[in-house]
């Protein structure tokens, strides 16, 4: 008896993250309704393009409520602590990759940057070694896919030398 009560106890209590999730779902539902209202109504038999978004929005609204109840009751599954630095490092790597591709820096520098930041996120501190491995790996991928399989990967100054 006491054992089962002890197991129940930590599950209770309001889960703040769960409330944020419920709020986000409700926000998406509102965006759907807003967007559906922007579609000019056309007369036709059956459903127009604005019906499905509204139906999905209603479903999302109900689910937001259900998620909210779960969060208030503390019914969310337990989570372990997370390391925000690692997540941030990978996201910075992705942002840099997008920027380098966007500004025409080419495939090899972009993916090498992602390689180095990801490997740092997983705890490696040997930047020079990882940089060399990254350049070799992405160059091989570039040559294999761009030249052999003739996919078009974005070329920057480095790729034009190959």
């Amino acid at each position: 008896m006491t054992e089962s009560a002890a197991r129940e106890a930590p599950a209770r209590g309001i889960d703040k993250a769960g409330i944020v999730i419920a709020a986000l779902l409700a926000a998406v539902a509102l965006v759907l309704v807003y967007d559906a209202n922007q579609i000019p109504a056309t007369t036709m038999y059956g459903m127009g393009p604005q019906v499905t978004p509204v139906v999905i929005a209603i479903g999302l609204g109900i689910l937001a409520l259900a998620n909210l109840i779960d969060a208030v009751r503390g019914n969310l599954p337990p989570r372990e602590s997370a390391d925000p630095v690692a997540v941030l490092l990978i996201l910075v790597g992705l942002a840099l990759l997008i920027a380098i591709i966007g500004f025409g820096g080419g495939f090899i520098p972009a993916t090498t940057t992602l390689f180095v930041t990801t490997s740092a996120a997983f705890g490696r501190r040997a930047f020079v070694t990882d940089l060399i491995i990254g350049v070799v790996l992405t160059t091989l991928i570039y040559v294999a896919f761009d030249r052999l399989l003739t996919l078009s990967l974005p070329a920057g100054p480095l790729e034009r030398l190959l």
Partner: protein
Amino acid sequence: MDTFAALAHGMAIAAQPMNLLYALIGVFLGTAVGVLPGIGPALTVALLLPVTYKLDPGGSLIMFAGIYYGGMYGGSTTAILINTPGESASMATALEGNKMAKAGRGGPALATSAIGSFVAGTIATIGLAFLSPYLVDIAVRFGPEDYFALMCVAFITVSATFGDSPIRGLTSLFIGLVLGLVGIDKLTGQARLAFGVPELLDGVEVTTLAVGLFAVGEALYVASRRHHSEEKIEAVKGSLWMTREDWKRSWKPWLRGTLFGFPIGALPAGGAEIPTFLSYSTERRLTKYPDEFGKGAIEGVAGPEAANNASAAGTLVPLLTLGLPTSATAAMMLAGFQQYGLNPGPLLFAERPDLVWGLIASLFIANTMLLVLNLPLVGLWVRLLKIPTPWLYAGILVFATMGTIAAKPSVVELSMLAGFGVLGFLMRRFDFPIAPVVVGLILGPIAESQLRRALAISLGDPMTLLQSPISATLLVVALIALIAPFILKGLGRFKANED
């Protein structure tokens, strides 16, 4: 249709030297990627899609068949040697297989899983070949309202019925449905949820979503909790071969696993974890060595592995005959078809029999190749497992972004990939299942257009959904599947599926 003639014709196509080469490359790449820890068959297929961009549809689908089965073999190798099943369907395998590897019986565990997968895969592919023409006959009689009802069944079973929490499963499904709305409405040409961004008018790419959720999301999740655990690879010690005793204890579980796997996989219920766990508990009950269970019983590897492979072939039945993906892997296969503008379903059997039967035939070939390749190459696969985690995930991310860069090298598309990665991370952290998002994205637009077509035919009368007996029955099934988990709450259910 005469199945034998069709299959023989398919064999003739699949046995052409070039197609054999494609199958071999597919099997090899599939195993190599599938063996990497944390990568399940769905992600294997998603990551290797770009490799097939420039091939003709026939060759690429054959390579796909190889990648599909190769990814599954690779996944069980990982489950046995490091106890990190890339998908929950391999969890039962990891349970006993990893214990066997720890006890120095890794070789026989890998062997029984490889041979069992071959036996199950072959029987189930025969089942697929003979069952499909019948289903196609039924499917051609389906009207748009029946298709809509069928998709409702798939939505519910994939998201709510068999998961941990129906509410979280349905939430995942609805996220997928919302993503499916993005872009130009095919019936009227109106833009929805595009917010004036031209790149969004084409809609959300299935591969971008899948690679973002599975690859980027997984990398973020593993990085965020790196401090919690270290994985340990078990060396393959001793003989690779099974003893006479091992064979005697394996063959019945193989066959029973196939019997569980194929029918459950073929139903539009999704996921291989139910048959694998059914097989595991059955073998546990029937075994003559009950005290070995939990410590490395060979039956506990043989049965679930066979069930897993048989259900993988089973999921191809609804995929090929109805165009209905019921697992994340099947959804990725559908994406592979769609990149050539091919839509699986009864029409594809009629219009492109060479493609469909060539694919089915190459499943046999891929299976045989895997049996021959896998055990001798096990040393190579073990070496792949030893890649240090930082480089492994860095490499996965490079390859994952490469696929998107090759398909659509735009800032918007890459930002979407990163955004889906964050979504995948959050969903893993808060225990939302991921497969329903992918299924929702693919099936949502199809379900909508079928419903609208049905309503246009009936001049807007929604009763058409209940007047067709097929559609009415299917809607009742969907309703029961939706309500059942709420009623059965408290009874033991199977864990959420993610592959």
